[in-house]
């Protein structure tokens, strides 16, 4: 390979890498959107099931209300359930005081 060819193929490789990176970033943002949407749908689904069960007249009295349990489940799966960052991923699974308050507050 002469110097010109070497240089040209380097340019070509750089361009290809940039294109790949752009596509990767696009995919990343799409994925996080899908995950967030999925989280919201799950909450909604649980809510609907909840209503369905209620209308069937289930009389069990759990420690946490059904909707709080759903929030707890979602939180454990790694999503915020607080008003501030609802449906967003909890970065590195770190604890969120706002979520805790929503799930476990009295009353």
């Amino acid at each position, binding site marked *: 390979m002469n110097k010109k060819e070497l240089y040209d193929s380097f340019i070509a490789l750089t361009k290809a890498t940039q294109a790949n990176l752009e596509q990767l970033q696009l995919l990343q943002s799409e994925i996080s959107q899908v995950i967030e949407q999925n989280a919201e749908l799950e909450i909604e689904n649980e809510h609907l099931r909840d209503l369905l069960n209620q209308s069937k007249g289930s009389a069990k009295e759990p420690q946490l209300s059904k909707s709080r349990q759903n929030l707890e489940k979602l939180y*454990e799966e790694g999503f915020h359930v607080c*008003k*501030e*960052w609802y449906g967003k991923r909890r*970065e590195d699974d*770190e*604890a*969120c*005081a*706002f979520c*805790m*308050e929503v*799930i*476990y*507050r009295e009353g």
Partner: protein
Amino acid sequence: MKFSIRRSVFIKELNNVQRAISSKTTIPILTGLKLVASDEGLTLTGSNADISIETVISASDEDNGLAIASTGAIVLPARFFSEIIKRLPEDTFELNVTEGFQTEITSGSAAFNVNGLDANNYPHLPEIDTTDAIKLDGAVFKELISQTVIAVSNQESRPILTGVHFELDADQFLAVATDSHRLSQRKVNLPTGSSTKHNVIIPGKSLIELSRMIGDEYDQVEMRLSENQALFILGETSFYTRLLEGTYPDTSRLIPSEAETTVEFEAPALLASIERASLLSHESRNNVIKLIIKPTEQTVTIFGNSPDVGKVEEDLKPNAVTGSELEISFNPDYMKDALHSFGQSTIKISFTSALRPFTLVPTEDQENFIQLITPVRTF
């Protein structure tokens, strides 16, 4: 523009103003230091996107050795200019803007010629339209800053949490910061109250710079708050910072009002134990330590382990243990930060459950300073 001045006086003020000057700014003129000579004295200004600092060296104070021969203004490359001033041979130097923006700096037999910039192109400092000046004790304010900035978030993805929330109502001043994992809140009674209510969010980074500038030197700080800027006046120096836009989340609801289990410790002793346990937790992926509290036996035991390295167990020496038995896990780094802020005092830790945030307060003053840490679920 021409003046001469005592070099040590100038360097001291230059060091303060330089806190606001960054070499990495997108606006080239802001890498410069603005100098304005008037009959009253010499004004130094430095600015970046977040903070601006302006200070006045008075011509009437003889200690400054300031003689204004002719008035005017110039912007000089800050880093280069300050290196020059610091290395000049004599106790005084003279600065003279000659032709255009050419600036001559002389001290003894050394003479520099520096290219300056037109001061008319330097951005104007923010206007603070309020007359409500809140007087703060320098040492107390510095303490308030150091106690709250530890809980500020460093994640730019949640900009609002990178600031400290200031709320002022009459003589009550409340400062709170949280990164959503932990929270720190300090209340101060103001000597003279604020005539209007204020609710602002100040960038944590600005407060850290401000606190460094207060140092041990200023025992009085005056604070003025407007819509999108805050101004702090320290003697002859004005420190401006932008405010963060938006509404700070309601944090009052995060602080539990009742406790199921409480323990009391000497802060330094607990800190030493937590640091020991974290030696191992730091080696593990999730960085968590566990406390087991048994009030009937008056014991508190700390556990740390790392699957790769090993484990640690230590019986702590609490001053008091009350309430129900509890097992709780948390990130030791948050606990360390919190304990550092209590210095030598005795602290009370109040728990509601293994899942709810717990609080730390100094036993001496349980009202005005509170730290909150969110536990980690381990099952």
